């Protein structure tokens, strides 16, 4: 099996149609279990109280917000280098999902920050980076919508994604340099180290993480199928205009 089989839109739609009925319930199931477990059956943190429950939404959303951009970068590179049409459409389909995850991370973060830090917003490196990431998503989506020819749009947005990634990385370090952080470090991989994530939160968080990854994949698959159909539709409509 190679990704080139799925450069054929028909084959891609068929396969997506077989995967989705499994993937979507699985994603919802993981997410539901994780969130219900996290919300109802976890103890309060000794320092953060009940607000720790926000973590089960905040951390997965933040993680996928970054990974979605990474996936878009890989998909754009595959498109630019090897002209894999479905890949370009997958990048396009991922953008609104990534944008939403970024928004969720920012909103839940603000609501978490208010009781913990005494402020909704702080110009902390992580927070600022996410705000900048939000701008990148907006620019990317706006460029897709502005360019009419689909292949030109795919090329230009792919290029923007690659160049933007470099600058997003630069911004990340610039922002770190610019202000010291208030945001705590990630604790999920600190097993056996100082100040690890409490085991009581570990499993519900894992469930939420898996759930959000699966949900992202499902949404991207659906979105890609949508984009393929929209392109076919555009071709048919163009032909109709020509004949009329």
């Amino acid at each position, binding site marked *: 099996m190679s990704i080139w089989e799925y450069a054929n839109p028909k084959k891609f739609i068929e396969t997506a149609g077989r995967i989705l009925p499994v993937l979507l319930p699985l994603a919802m199931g993981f997410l539901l279990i994780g969130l219900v477990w996290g919300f109802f059956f976890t103890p309060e943190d000794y320092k953060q109280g009940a*607000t720790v429950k926000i973590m089960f939404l*905040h951390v997965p959303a933040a993680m996928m917000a970054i990974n979605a951009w990474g996936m878009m970068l890989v998909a754009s590179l595959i498109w630019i280098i090897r002209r894999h049409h479905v890949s370009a459409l997958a990048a396009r389909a991922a953008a609104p999902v990534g944008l*939403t995850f970024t928004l969720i991370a920012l909103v839940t973060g603000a*609501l978490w920050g208010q009781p913990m830090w005494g402020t909704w917003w702080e110009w902390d490196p992580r927070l600022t980076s996410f705000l900048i990431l939000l701008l990148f998503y907006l620019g990317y989506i706006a460029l897709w919508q502005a360019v009419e020819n689909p292949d030109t749009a795919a090329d230009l947005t792919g290029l923007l994604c690659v160049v933007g990634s470099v600058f997003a990385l630069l911004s990340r370090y610039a922002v770190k340099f610019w202000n010291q952080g208030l945001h705590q470090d990630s604790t999920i991989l600190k097993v056996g180290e100082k100040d690890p994530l409490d085991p009581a939160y570990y499993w519900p968080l894992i469930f939420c993480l898996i759930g959000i990854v699966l949900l992202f994949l499902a949404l991207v698959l659906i*979105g890609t199928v949508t984009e393929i159909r929209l392109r076919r*539709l555009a071709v048919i409509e163009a032909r109709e205009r020509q004949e009329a």
Partner: protein
Amino acid sequence: MPELGKYAFAVLASYGAGLALLGAVVALVVWRFRRAKAALIAAEARLAARAAQGHHGQANGGRA
């Protein structure tokens, strides 16, 4: 319902806003999917109808 204490607003609002946004993006993706599918089916039906009509017309023309 778990005891959330003084942080009830923060936690509930987070879950509310987070789930609402998730729901919104799922709804948007599904809505676009349905709309694209319906539009494509309609367009292909038009195409098929026209093709059939075209053949028909040609065949008739040939006979006459």
